[in-house]
């Protein structure tokens, strides 16, 4: 019986001109989003790869130099554009794309794309993620809001139930029929997206894309369940529509904004001034109460004793290389502390945001989408930490070269391309999908909870289904 109802709903939806028109509009918007994001991805991808190669070339061809001058010259790490960013750009526009890796300092990423956008960017961007996570659910609501209510108003619900079908079978039939029709109508766009992904980046990102697709389908099913339940309970089609539209607007636009700003009010982000003052104070005194100068003196005494000499110039190594190493040890610890504090403050804000996703499954889906697409805050952190690890290794190599290959006081010491090549090349390796999924436990739980609640609500509704219009 469920299959019969599903077939009828499926055919009815595909014959409905409004549904077909809506699907065409969604398809068109999806194509616009796909074309613009695809072009942007291709341009960013090649641009950053070229820039990284150019920076590396500048590094290896910087000529003979003192290694510490080279350390101050530094190198840049660029964050490559990942293929699924064309689906969900996530936070990419609001994070810098390059980091200057230089001596003694951990710099913030620079070159935030949002700085070069119009004020309308704050209005929202048309991305494929937005189409699938906001517009498709809206389309489902508009397609479904009258599924029960209009049949009740016209009296056909009574006739259908009199034919022997139970309310639960009718509900399940409508769910599968309308869901199947929606899936069929969106199939061209979905296939086009998957085709574009495979064409541009092979099959590496296909598993992530399928997870993303699965999450979107779960959310769409959840919306469908909600719409059918509301339609079955509402006193009229009009009130069903109003309730569903209000729900959609609130969970899509209102709750995320309130939650995001509430997080900032509850846990303010340290300002750049506070951050810099904290770093400067700790650099001057050292974290463990021992100043960098005192550390240097202690190490100097240890080395003089070890090599049984009385003057720094008599050491077989260049003590200045050791000094740079000590300064880096201190500054690394200080930056770890302050970047840690900054990250904890932002994490606390994100926690508020994720907690609020209990009220808005759309937010939970957004978190999953950004994680799987590699465009989340955590992916940005992964890039920053990788770049910082490279910086530290680079500085270690340069400091060691000074210490081992020159003598104390030899300010005119120069190193050449051999050393610049020895420092290696910065390469970004994206996080594996498993690491991204591991961070999705909370939002997945929210989606499952919503699903469970809605299944419960739909069962309860079908048990007490009102057959006649009031």
């Amino acid at each position: 019986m469920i299959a019969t109802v599903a077939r009828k709903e499926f055919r009815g939806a595909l014959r409905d001109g409004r549904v077909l028109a809506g699907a065409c509009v969604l398809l068109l918007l999806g194509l616009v989003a796909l074309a613009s994001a695809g072009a942007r991805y291709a341009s960013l991808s090649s641009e950053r790869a070229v820039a990284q190669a150019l920076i590396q070339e500048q590094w290896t061809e910087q000529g003979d130099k003192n290694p510490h001058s080279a350390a101050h010259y530094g190198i840049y790490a660029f964050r490559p554009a990942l293929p699924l960013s064309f689906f969900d750009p996530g936070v990419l526009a609001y994070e810098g794309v390059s980091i200057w890796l230089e001596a003694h300092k951990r710099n913030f990423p620079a070159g935030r794309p949002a700085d070069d956008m119009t004020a309308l960017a704050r209005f929202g961007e048309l991305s494929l993620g937005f189409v699938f996570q906001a517009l498709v659910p809206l389309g489902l609501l508009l397609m479904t809001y009258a599924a029960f209510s209009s049949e009740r108003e016209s009296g056909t619900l009574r006739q259908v139930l009199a034919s022997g079908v139970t309310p639960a079978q009718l509900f399940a039939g409508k769910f599968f029929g309308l869901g199947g029709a929606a899936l069929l109508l969106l199939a061209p766009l979905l296939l086009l997206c998957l085709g574009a992904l495979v064409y541009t980046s092979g099959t590496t990102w296909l598993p992530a894309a399928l997870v993303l697709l699965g999450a979107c389908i779960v959310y769409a099913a959840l919306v469908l369940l909600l719409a059918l339940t509301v339609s079955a309970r509402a006193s009229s089609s009009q009130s069903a529509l109003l309730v569903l539209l209000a729900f959609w607007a609130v969970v899509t636009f209102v709750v995320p904004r309130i939650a995001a700003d509430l997080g900032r009010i509850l846990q303010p982000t340290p300002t750049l001034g506070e951050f810099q003052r904290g770093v400067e104070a700790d650099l001057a005194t050292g974290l463990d109460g021992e100043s960098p100068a005192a550390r240097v003196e202690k190490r100097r005494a240890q080395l003089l004793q070890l090599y049984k000499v009385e003057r720094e110039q008599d050491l077989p190594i260049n003590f200045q290389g050791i000094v740079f190493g000590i300064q880096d040890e201190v500054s690394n610890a200080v930056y770890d502390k302050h970047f840690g504090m900054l990250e904890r403050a932002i994490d606390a804000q994100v926690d508020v945001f994720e907690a609020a996703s209990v009220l808005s499954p759309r937010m939970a889906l957004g978190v999953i989408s950004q994680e799987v697409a590699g465009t989340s805050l955590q992916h940005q952190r992964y890039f920053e930490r990788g770049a910082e690890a490279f910086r530290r290794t680079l500085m270690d190599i340069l400091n060691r070269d000074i210490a081992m290959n020159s003598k104390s006081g030899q300010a005119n010491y120069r190193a050449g391309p051999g050393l610049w090549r020895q420092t290696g090349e910065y390469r970004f390796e994206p996080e594996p999908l498993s690491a991204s999924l591991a961070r999705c436990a909370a939002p997945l739980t929210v989606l499952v909870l919503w699903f469970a609640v809605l299944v419960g609500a739909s069962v309860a509704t079908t048990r007490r289904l009102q057959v006649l219009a009031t």
Partner: protein
Amino acid sequence: MSTAMLRQELQLLRREGLAPWALIALTLLLVAAALNGRALLGVQARTAAALEAEAAETTLALAAQAGRGVATAISPGVVGYSVLNKPVVLPAAPLGALAIGQAELLPAWYPVTARGPHHFLARNEPDNPLRLAVGNFDAAFVIVWLLPLVVIALSFNVVSAERERGVLALALAAGSSPAGFILGKVAARALLLFVSLWLALLAAALAAGVPLGRAAGALPLLLWFTGATLYAAFWFALALFVNSRPRASDQNAGLLAGAWLVLVVLLPALTHLAATTVFAAPSRVALTTELREASESADRAAAAARDQYFFDHPEMQGGDPDRSAYFRSVAESELSVATAMAPLLAQFEVQARRQQGLVEVLQFLSPGTMTWQSLTALAGSDGARHREFRGQTLAFHERWSAFFREPLLSGATLTPVAYAALPRFEFDEPPLVSTLPRVLPALAALLVLSLLLGAVSVRRLRRFPVV
């Protein structure tokens, strides 16, 4: 429309329950959004004040040290290129807390030094990118996104419900004209909403700390009221237009919701997409590599002085070595890099203006975009005020930089008198009249659109089928 009819309509709305709750929710949301905006911008104001106080304290200390002949304090190189940061601050705009817009994204202060502008122009406050990507909950958001939904909730069935219940036929039988009867119902709803909106906006302005007693606050706020009112009027006119065809109430609601989606969500997003695609900003990545090329070629000339300086690291070693050769090399290379970078940085400015120009044309496609552009322009957060700030900062930087570069190159030293003559910065606020060309056309277009829709609807209602 008679007063009795108006009173009766208002009573009906009160009894229906939806209208009072919708209006209370709108008021609460507006006030909460204004408080939120005030809290967010308050952080910027406190930060700026602390930075200015700190810089003033540092300057005083340096002046005192210069009086005692301390080497670092009398050296224009050390002070200008290494020690002294002049925080150049953009004060909060009077209506800033009502529309955050670009105000949180673009820097509200620049740490100006004698070094090139590329050092300070690219700085950003650390922030939660997820929050920035989601967008702010401010009064402009409530007006542009949520106010239409309240209008739709109040008026989507203004004709259809009367028709479905048979009240329209009864009213006409009692002698009312269809247009007069329906316009009366719409007018009652509009009046109720406008009065509630004005009261809510006044409460929001007070909550946001808008200086109502000063012209700088009151005049733009008056235009804000006008913009919000015209925007609401447009949605009432659109609801009337949709109702002027005999359709079921749920169909009307669906149509109006679709219109909201297109006008408030899709068209602004497409306008933004068009502006950033047609006039794409120059690449920040390319800027980075260009900057590096320019720095490298400028630094080659100064390589020997750099090597010695970085190798000695006098600021980390203590002591008081002569660093003037190093700072002269810095001054020369900074000037050379700044000269090389100026045309590239100007390209960003040019593209930003072109993007803005295109948005100002395309805004007429959507009342949502028009209202957003007007509200953010009046609040000083549409990017134009920041561009002005950036321009004034660059002009100030020229003076600040020359103040240190000239004595450095001539071998002169800084004295307490010189510290007293340090260039000062005060943002020269553009007058409201300079914002009006970005606001008035949009408000006029909203008015014309509302009148047109209203006129067409009235014409249609004259021939409206009662049953």
